[in-house]
């Protein structure tokens, strides 16, 4: 477990999502990365039930329940800017029981699937973000294994990202923050994914060329 940076790769002009992904993976393969199966991150949105809201004008907070194939036995529940709960996969069953408090937003399921590449100490995951039947964008996750302190290896990560993302290299993720010598954890990765998914959801009205 190391430090992870999740970013969005814009779809190249005049190409479909699929083609852009292929372009990226080819780049990685050329670099010498080894293909290591697939990965999947999914996210479901819940909003607090109207009955539990106290007074008018108070808007319900959104809760995101996420799974990551990298952590196959865990389930993550996050609030925006709020706490992150890590639990067993049995948490999903619990959510069904909590229908009275949290209601699943309709057609809110968003997920990213793709291939997992190992390149020395780096773990690269390039995935297609889909919401319902439609592909919405491309996610790129890069993990640097040997380090757990984000500020110590961010420049290394940046350099690696530049090598295959070129001009689309993202800035430092917000979760890295100003914290020094704070141990990076799985929850931070999930927060990055949540932010990415929210960003893509907002973009949905913008027509993306070449939707499958």
């Amino acid at each position: 477990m190391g430090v992870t940076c999740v970013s969005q790769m814009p779809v190249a002009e005049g190409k479909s999502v699929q083609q852009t992904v292929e372009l990226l993976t080819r780049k990685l393969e050329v670099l010498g990365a080894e293909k290591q199966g697939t990965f999947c991150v999914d996210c479901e949105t819940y909003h607090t039930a109207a009955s539990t809201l106290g007074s008018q004008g108070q808007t319900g907070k959104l809760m995101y329940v996420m799974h990551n194939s990298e952590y196959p036995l865990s389930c993550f529940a996050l609030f925006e800017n709020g706490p992150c709960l890590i639990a067993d996969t049995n948490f999903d069953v619990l959510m069904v029981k909590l229908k009275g408090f949290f209601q699943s937003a309709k057609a809110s399921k968003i997920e990213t699937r793709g291939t997992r590449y190992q390149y020395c100490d780096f773990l690269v995951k390039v995935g297609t973000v889909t919401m319902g039947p439609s592909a919405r964008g491309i996610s790129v996750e890069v993990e640097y294994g040997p380090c757990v302190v984000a500020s110590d290896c961010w420049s290394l990560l940046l350099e690696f990202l530049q090598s295959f993302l070129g001009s689309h290299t993202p800035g430092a993720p917000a979760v890295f923050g100003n914290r020094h010598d704070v141990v990076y954890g799985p929850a931070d990765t999930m927060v990055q994914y949540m932010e990415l998914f929210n960003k893509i959801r907002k973009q949905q009205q913008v027509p993306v060329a070449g939707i499958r």
Partner: protein
Amino acid sequence: MPVIQTESEYKPPVNGSYFAHVNSADGGCLLEKYSEKRHDFECALLANLFASEGQPGKVIEVKAKRRTGPLNFVTCMRQTLEKHYGNKPIGMGGTFIIQKGKVKSHIMPAEFSSCPLNSDEDVNKWLHFYEMKAPLVCLPVFVSRDPVTTGGLFVPLFLPRAGVLSPLADAASMSGVRAVRISIESACEKQVQEVGLDGTETYLQPLSMSQNLARLAQRIDFSQGSGSEEEEAAGAEGDAQDWPGAGSSADQDDEEGLVKFQPSLWPWDSVRNNLRSALTEMCVLYDVLSIVRDKKFMTLDPVSQDALPPKQNPQTLQLMSKKKSLAGAAQILLKGAERLTKSVTENQENKLQRDFNSELLRLRQHWKLRKVGDKILGDLSYRSAGSLFPHHGTFEVIKNTDLDLDKKIPEDYCPLDVQIPSDLEGSAYIKVSIQKQSPDIGDLGTVNLFKRSLPKSKPGSPHWQTKLEAAQNVLLCKEIFAQLSREAVQIKSQIPHIVVKNQIISQPFPNLQLSISLCHSSNDKKSQKFATEKQSPEDHLYVLEHNLHLLIREFHKQTLSSIMMPHPASAPFGHKRMRLSGPQAFDKNEINSLQSSEGLLEKIIKQAKHIFLRSRTAATIDSLASRIEDPQIQAHWSNINDVYESSVKVLITSQGYEQICKSIQLQLNIGVEQIRVVHRDGRVITLSYQEQELQDFLLSQMSQHQVHAVQQLAKVMGWQVLSFSNHVGLGPIESIGNASAITVASPNGDYAISVRNGPESGSKIMVQFPRNQCKDLPKSDVLQDTKWSHLRGPFKEVHWNKMEGRNFVYKMELLMSALSPCLL
């Protein structure tokens, strides 16, 4: 102050009277108790009497504050009563207390007046007056008015001996001359049987005439002699008073009283009395007899008598009673003895014929049993403990009936027997051994089959218990072996494991063979014979055999816990880390590492490797220690080891210089495949399992130790170290490690000693002398000045073997001290 309780049916008469009089000696008051002086119930000529039944009732309380007129307290009371009741005379008695103040009171003189007292004045003169201080308790008795015109307070009375005075309903006063009518009645005519809680009394019906007569007749003791006529008469007299109906008038009583008090006047008085009473009796007897005879007036009833004990000879009686009680005791004892013998015989019977059912019950306590058809089957497999071995492990319980009833029952006879499957009979064990590889592969698979004597059954545990335990052990050994052979086939290793017959052969290290074999000997003769021939148990590795059993049980536990144990719905029941893997977000690699499980064979091979490596290391160190004496080598083994790791501390020292030379301390961590050596300064060297490596390493360390020792010694002796090198790049090349060297100079700089020590070449010691001490040195043309002669000259080698001293460091010390300048 008379206080008298009169005699009644239930109570004896008590006289609790006090009398107070003026002490003639000092004129003070003398209070005495009447009963202390006299024991009768007589009274003086004058008395104020108040009689009551002693029962609670209504009283009148009067409070008086002070005197208001000429009349005294009692007179006022009398007048008040008189005013209320008029002509009716009312008597009153009780107590009053004078709480405060003084009282003028009179006390009669001890003697009555000799002359008549005609006026009050005379009376007052005769009386003595005293002033008395409060508090005073007074007991007044008075009557509201005189029933007759004249009278005084004093009422002389002759009290009857028995009977109770009624409350002063009627009071009489007499002047002492005239007789006054006094009515006296019995306290109660009927005897009180019981007093109810509400105070009502139930009375006994008065006895009828005949009953009363019978009772009285019963009281008469006819056996008494005739000399007690008088007493009898008195008794009869007393009895007569008990007759309720007997109208004994007051006059009669008075008369009798007079008679009683009369002294005997003439000598024939007693004779007359006796004669009179005899006559009376005779008359009475005659009357009675005539009445009885006529049967007109009275019939005789049999008198119910208290059954007097039959008058027997007291001795015979004693004997009889003793005999009777003894017989009773004997009977009890006999009954107890009978019961005891019965229980003893029952016990013996139970012991002899332990019946089948009780044995079955005991069997049931230890083994699983079930009934199939008309058979009782048991289960000796470890399936319930988590075993997955497919052997059914069933035994059958049978009744042991082949017993000759006529013959004596053998001691170890058991009515219950178990029949175990034939393949589980006998005894079995797993044998693990490590051998140097046998050159001949042909004899593989012939494993020593020797029979261990069956473990003797514990005293008290039945025959079938040992039998079943042995069978269970065979089953477990078979399971272990089956598991091992399955793994041996599955696991891919560089040198494949060989499974032949009942043996598994593996090669943990080259030229080394680990063999695990299942030795199962049935009870037939052939194998026993075979066993006696070949018995070489010295190459057993009992530790590994034991560990195999532990491992299979752990394996059982794992399967049991993962499959069968109840677990919470939220998490799998298993390892704690496994449970936490979800909430702590373990990634794939971590979960994989948790799930990887080694097989039985892999574990046991690892353990065997470790054991082998450890024993070989110990042997290497020991052989070095015994071979090389000069630097000594010591090994301290730790007592507690892991199955895969143990450690030893190796110290290299010189004898006699342990305190100075402590440079070499090594910690050897012996693992499964390799030995890690941790130096004192933290250097870590990893050695392989080859023993030569360890030996070479230790040799080089020992040679370095010598040079280190010289350095330490120089420090102590005050010599200067000129140069020091652990690894010298000059001189002959050593086959093992490197030579090390040191050069030290004497304190004044004249001499220098150079030491070179190699693990193989040994030590070489050279001494450098000042030039002026070298005679054979040719005169140099360059160094003319004498001052140059103080320079050190060439080296000369010391014949180290010829040096005195028991070891290297000691020799060096001698050499140094020889070369040091004499301080004198």
